[in-house]
C-alpha cells in the first residue's frame, strides 16, 4: 500500500512536468499545433531594410497576414531582396500593391506594411512587388535637418 501511494505521487510529479512543459510551449512561447499554416511566397526589393529581419511581421491594415522568411542581397542591383510568406487565405492582393518598411512605435520592431492597389490581377506564388518604400532612416533625417539640407 505504501509503495502504491509513492507510485501515485511520482506519477503526479511526472504529469506536472509534462503540464509545465505544455504551458511553456503553448502559453509562453505561443507555439500552436496548427503552426504550419499554408502560405505562398512573394518577393520585394528594398534600397534600405533599416533593421528588418527574418520572422518580421507582414501586415495589411494592421492585421498580420504573413511573415518575412528570408532576407538577402541581390548582387546585380545592390539592393535587398525580401522573401515574404503570405497566408494562403489572403489571395486577393493586387499586383500593384505597395510594400513599405515601417516601425511599430518609436523604437519598436520593423515590419512590412502592405497597401493594396487597384489592379485587377492578383499576386501569386513567386511574384515580386515592384512598388516599395524603404525604411525611414532616423539618423539620416536628423542629419539632413542639422545641416539644413532637408527638402520638402
Amino acid at each position, binding site marked *: 500500500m505504501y509503495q502504491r501511494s509513492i507510485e501515485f*505521487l511520482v506519477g503526479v510529479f511526472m504529469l506536472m512536468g509534462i503540464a*509545465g512543459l505544455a504551458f*511553456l510551449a503553448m502559453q509562453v*512561447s505561443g507555439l500552436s499545433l496548427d503552426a504550419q499554416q499554408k502560405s505562398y511566397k512573394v518577393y520585394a526589393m528594398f534600397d534600405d531594410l533599416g533593421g528588418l529581419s527574418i520572422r518580421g511581421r507582414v501586415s495589411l491594415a494592421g492585421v498580420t497576414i504573413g511573415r518575412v522568411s528570408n532576407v538577402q542581397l541581390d548582387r546585380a542591383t545592390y539592393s535587398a531582396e525580401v522573401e515574404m510568406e503570405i497566408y494562403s487565405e489572403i489571395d486577393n492582393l493586387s499586383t500593384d500593391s505597395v510594400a513599405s518598411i515601417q516601425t511599430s512605435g518609436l523604437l519598436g520592431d520593423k515590419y512590412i506594411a502592405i497597401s493594396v492597389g487597384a489592379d485587377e490581377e492578383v499576386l501569386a506564388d513567386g511574384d515580386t512587388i515592384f512598388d516599395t518604400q524603404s525604411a525611414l532612416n532616423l539618423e539620416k533625417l536628423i542629419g539632413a535637418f542639422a545641416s539644413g539640407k532637408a527638402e520638402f
Partner: protein
Amino acid sequence: MVNFIIKLGRSGVEFLETLGRSGVFLMRAVFGLSLSFKGLALLVRQLYRVGVLSLIIIIVSGLFIGMVLGLQGYSILTDYGSEQAVGQMVALTLVRELGPVVTALLFAGRAGSALTAEIGLMKATEQLSSLEMMGVDPLRRIIAPRFWAGFISLPILAVIFSAVGVLGGMLISVDWLGVYDGAFWSNMQSAVEFESDVLNGVIKAVVFGLVCSWIAVFQGYDLIPTSEGISSATTKTVVYSSLAILSLDFLLTAVMFGGL
C-alpha cells in the same frame, strides 16, 4: 622548494586519479540501472524522495522569484513607458537562465547533499560492503537508482519552476500593478521561441541534472568512512555542484545564445 614540487605533483596525480575513478563510476552507474520490475520499483522510490519531496521548495522559490522579477521589471520598464514588455522580460529570464540555474542550485542543496550523506553513512556503517558480501552489487542496488532519479527529476523540476515563475510574474504585474494582460501574453509569445529558448533551457537542466547527481553519488561513494569524512563530503557536494552549475551555465549560454 623540492618538497613543494613533490606536493604539487602528488596533488595533481591524485586529482587525475579521482577524475578517472569518477568517470568509471559514472559509466557503471549509468549502465547499472536494471530495467526489471524490482529495479524500476527502486527507481520510483528514489524519484519520490529526490523529486517529489523537492517540489515544495521549487514551487515556492519559483513563485517568489517570478514575483520579484515582475516587480523589478515593472519599475525599470515603466521609466521607458514600456511596461507591457514585463511579460517578455520575466519569461525570457526564467526560461533561459533562472529556471535551470536556480533549480539546480536548490537541488544540489536539498537533494544532492542528502544523497551524499545517505550513501556515506551506508559506507561508514559497512552496509555497502555487507551488500557486496551477499553477492549484491551496491552500484546496481544503491547507486544507479539514486543517480537516475536525480538525472530525471532535475529537468522536470526546472520546467515546473519556470512555469510557476511566469505565473508569479503575471500575478504581480497583471493583477497587482495593472499591466494589460493581453499585451502581457502577446509580447511574451512574440519574444519567446520554443526551440531556441524553452528547449535550450531544458537542455541546460538536463546537463545540470547529470552533473549534480554525478557529483552527489560519487562524493558519497568515495568518501573517507568517518563522521568527519561524511561532513566534508556533504560540503564538497554542495560546493562542487554550485561551481560546476555556474561555470557550465556560462559555457552553455555562450554556445546557445552567444553566437559562438
